[in-house]
């Protein structure tokens, strides 16, 4: 590849071009359509891997066209390449997962549209990442938003349309903030090209606060940090599961990507901005975690968990030291992997049983060992259990917050640690009630190979990147300018060896000492609360119908009712902390009063006309 730039454009053009092709092709052959979308996504993934050597030394610009005052520019940097490979990997997983998942709808919906939109979504995301000019980025950003909207509302159910509308409206509000920010930046700095902004133009100090806050809000809506997260827990559960994996796995990361890019790569912002981000991140960790605990809907639980994990990334990014950025970016990659995995796993659960309610689920682990194993790996990775990749990034983040020389740094550390605890709590709930315990729902169908592959691949990657993080560290080196220095020691290989050894020893004891014989299977027993203490009448009035029921929610209900955090749950459930609901309430009241004013009385309308005339006359003559 003497001129790799030409091939770089293929990353964008192929998915966008394939989108209508796949849409049309599906009318003739479904099989061909499925294969084609799999091949294209995999091909893009391979292509993006092939680019890694080229971006190690610096950015790779492959298209800049200036047409009058309109500039179109694309390029690849180490960070955007990382994002592209993540996008294409997850899209690949989604596209091999989807064909069997869509059987759920039994041909009721237009599957061709689904695949076309999937590729369009991918193209939009890749475009939004590799654009080197902000207006160009905006177009692809909107393409991404639009495709995601149609994918979220794909099921055409009332709930999904509502969730999709909320998502679209909030995203569009964010996008308008971005647009205002870009326009302001263009007017004050004279350019919107990233390379020029990076090298020559500094941020106009007078406008830095409005521009940066507009960008923060705009990209923040996509990134879904507190308090502008409220679309996420609605939209994720309602979307088809592979789409949830994409939304949570990478779409929100595109928002984070631009926050990182603008706040650190383009303008090295002041420390106060970093502190703001870090504090927002810390709050997001805690609130997302608390809210995830009390959910009864698998996908909603994972969605809140996404918010919490976004908090980690924000925190790392806000700390802003080499270590913090590294932690943030590595966590971004890791979260994409394990959250994609978890959503696909949840998708399998939904596919298999037809329900999302944790209360109705149970005992799936024995039916689907491979899926169970993969999901457990993802869950442990999320909880930050060594030697999986989630631990690795969280470890770096702890280090970064210890090193952070600010008064509130201990708070960050505590939030991160506590958030990790929360993640253990909620993810155990998920694993436990869905896969362990007694089987409580009929299994409608079994997952196909595509689904299994789609969860197995990220599980292997989670394990691999946790035990062998060097490639990942290598790839982020050019982003943050060198491998971060650790103060504490964490030797991944050693630790992995020890931990695996310990597990082996434990297994040996289990088998040799014949614990298997002596162990008894007890009813659900979690968090120190006994079966006897559970108020079954209150939470499970139908308990006597099932002679044995999993009660994992009990501990969570205790948490929920504890007064310290109770207000949070109440506020979230009643939408007190939802800016969307607040704005729409005010808007509705205003609209109602305006409609009341238009009461069909001609003389009233004429009075408006004449008063308008008088006001205009007054304005014109008084100067």
């Amino acid at each position, binding site marked *: 590849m003497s001129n790799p730039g030409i091939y770089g454009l293929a990353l964008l053009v192929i998915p966008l071009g394939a989108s209508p092709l796949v849409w049309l092709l599906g009318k003739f052959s479904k099989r061909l359509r499925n294969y084609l979308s799999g091949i294209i996504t995999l091909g893009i993934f391979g292509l993006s891997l092939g680019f890694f050597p080229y971006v190690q030394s610096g950015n790779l610009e492959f298209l800049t066209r200036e047409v009058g005052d309109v500039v179109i520019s694309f390029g690849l940097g180490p960070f955007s390449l990382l994002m592209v490979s993540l996008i294409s990997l997850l899209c690949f997983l989604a596209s091999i997962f989807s064909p069997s998942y869509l059987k759920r709808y039994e041909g009721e919906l237009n599957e061709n549209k689904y695949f076309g939109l999937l590729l369009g979504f991918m193209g939009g995301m890749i475009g939004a990442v590799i654009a080197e000019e902000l207006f160009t980025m905006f177009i692809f950003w909107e393409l991404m938003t*639009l495709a995601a909207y149609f994918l979220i509302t794909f099921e055409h159910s009332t709930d999904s*349309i509502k969730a999709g*509308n909320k998502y679209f*409206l909030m995203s569009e509000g964010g996008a*308008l903030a971005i647009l205002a920010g870009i326009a*302001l930046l263009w007017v004050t700095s004279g350019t919107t090209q990233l390379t020029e902004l990076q090298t020559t133009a500094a941020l106009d100090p007078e406008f830095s606060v409005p521009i940066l806050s507009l960008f923060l809000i705009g990209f923040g809506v996509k990134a879904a940090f507190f308090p502008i997260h409220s679309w996420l827990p609605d939209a994720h559960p309602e979307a088809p599961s592979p789409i949830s994996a994409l939304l949570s796995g990478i779409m929100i990361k595109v928002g984070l990507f631009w926050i990182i890019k603008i706040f650190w790569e383009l303008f090295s912002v002041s420390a106060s901005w970093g502190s703001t981000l870090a504090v927002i991140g810390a709050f997001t960790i805690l609130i997302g975690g608390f809210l995830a605990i009390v959910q009864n809907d698998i996908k909603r639980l994972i969605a809140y968990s996404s918010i919490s994990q976004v908090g980690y990334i924000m925190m790392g990014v806000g700390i802003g030291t080499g270590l913090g950025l590294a932690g943030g970016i590595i966590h971004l990659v890791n979260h994409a992997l394990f959250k994609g995995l978890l959503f696909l796993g949840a998708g399998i659960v939904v596919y298999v049983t037809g329900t999302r309610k944790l209360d109705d689920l149970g005992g799936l682990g024995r039916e689907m060992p491979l899926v169970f194993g993969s999901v457990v790996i993802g869950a442990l990775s999320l909880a930050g259990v060594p030697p999986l990749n989630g631990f690795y990034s969280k470890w770096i983040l702890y280090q970064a917050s210890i090193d952070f020389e600010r008064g509130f740094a201990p708070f960050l550390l505590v939030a991160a640690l506590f958030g990790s605890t929360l993640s253990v709590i909620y993810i155990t709930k998920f694993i436990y009630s869905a896969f362990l315990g007694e089987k409580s729902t009929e299994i409608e169908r079994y997952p196909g190979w595509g689904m299994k592959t789609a969860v197995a691949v990220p599980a292997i990657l989670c394990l691999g990147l946790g035990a062998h993080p060097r490639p990942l560290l290598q790839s982020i080196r050019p982003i943050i300018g060198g491998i971060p220095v650790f103060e504490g020691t964490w030797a991944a290989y050693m630790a992995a060896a020890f931990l695996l050894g310990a597990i082996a020893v434990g297994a040996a004891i289990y088998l040799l000492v014949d614990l298997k014989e002596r162990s008894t299977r007890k009813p659900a027993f979690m968090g120190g609360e006994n079966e006897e203490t559970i108020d079954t009448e209150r939470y499970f009035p139908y308990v006597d119908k099932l002679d044995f029921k999993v009660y994992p929610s009990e501990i969570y209900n205790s948490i929920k009712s504890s007064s310290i955090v109770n207000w949070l749950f109440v506020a979230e459930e009643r939408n007190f902390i939802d800016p969307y609901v607040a704005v729409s309430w005010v808007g*509705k009241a205003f609209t109602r009063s305006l409609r009341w004013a*238009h009461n069909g009385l001609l003389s009233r309308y004429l009075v408006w*006309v004449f008063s308008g005339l008088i006001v205009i006359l007054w304005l*014109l003559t008084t100067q």
Partner: protein
Amino acid sequence: MLPLFVAIPLGVGFLLPLIEEFRERTQFFAVTVLLETGLLLALSLVKFGEESIYRLGGWRPPIGINYVLDGLSSLILVVISGIAFVTALFAMTYMSKYENLGKFYGLFSLMLAGMYGVALTGDVFNMYVYLEVAAISSYALVGFNRGPEELEASFKYLIMGAVGSIFILLGIAMLYGSVGSLNIADISVRVSEVSDQSFILLSTALFIVGFGLKAAFIPFHSWLPDAHSSAPTPISAMLSGVLIKVLGVYALSRILFNGLNLPNLTPEILTWIGAGSMFIGGMIALGQKDLKRLLAYSSISQMGYITLGLGMGGIFMSQGKPAVATLALIGGVFHLVNHAAYKSLLFLFSGGVERIFGTRDLSQIGGITRVSPVSGATGTIGTLSISGIPPFNGFWSKLVIVIAAIWGGLYPIAGIVLFTSAITLAYYLKVQRELFLGEVAGEITDKGKISPGIYVPLLILAVCCIGLGLLYLPEIRGIVLKPAALALQEGSEYTKLVLGL
């Protein structure tokens, strides 16, 4: 060539009722009007980009009436002809069940003649006459169905329109009294020599209110939702698509920019009226249940964008920032073209919806994408365009307006524009929720009636909605939109063209 734009529709408009007196030939009328609009479209495309002046009756401009073709009016001609052509195509199938079609098409042609006249004429009083021709035809067309609601809407429209016309006439009288000329170019020369400016200011205010009534600015808008939702669908598309623009915004800006040279504070007033219309129209649209009424309120909101763009252009002109002024004016004109395309699309689409479900009440219907994929897709394109989602055309014009506002330092205006854009999206998402997506609801009266005659016009306009985004490209913008903006900005060029100075 220029008088043909008025003469052809005028001739057709008189001919069709005459023929109807002897024989009812529905299809013949429809085809005639289609041919007429097609011919006019071809003519306006041929004439596009030309700058010329036509002296009616051979009299020299300050004395006689003259027709002017410059960047702005040639663009307006294309918009009128294009929308009229598509509407005529739609009406051919849609209106075929109605009676008295000779009168319908006759009035339609007369309305066209009036609009062309307004777009072309260079004389204030002649503009008033053409405006009345178009307006009277539209009053009659709104009440064409002769149901109680149609007549009520028509009557209210008529009274308010008559009040507006009286204001315009009074404004013309005062202008003539103080300036002593009716020719727009001549006025612009003489107006600065007038010592007492009070009458000119008075007439400016009257013009703003009078044309503002036709253009449905807040607070002169209240006839519009009634009239536009009650009119037969092709007429709604014409009214919202071009009539309010030509009779309102175009005529007003022609007089204010080219004639009166923007008396003090006029651009500010226009800008704030635009911002208010935009915001309040959008807010009321949010609460509507009737699809056509929602579209009508959204027209008020979108007219606000156009006015805002033009008003901002005026502000920047007076501040001595010609580059930003050009951009703002381009934004206004661009939005005018775009709005013509997608609002006619949406109104014609609402006609299709009414055909399918037999009602326009959003709460009773749903799932049109499954019933009729073509109308669903075109309607979706329309809603996305008007909400300003890229890559559809509405986005580009809003982008230009926002950039101009920020560039010129009018940050609150930019904020209102962006916020209104979100409101627009909100009410069109409501339409999406109720109408496009979701289960099929409501009684499907006659699905078979979604024939090519209904959806081909929708497809044409949908293609326009996507294609017009290309106007943003600098080369095309330079050919199409910039002359139109400069026609408003460079008043002296207009004077030179007309008076030959």
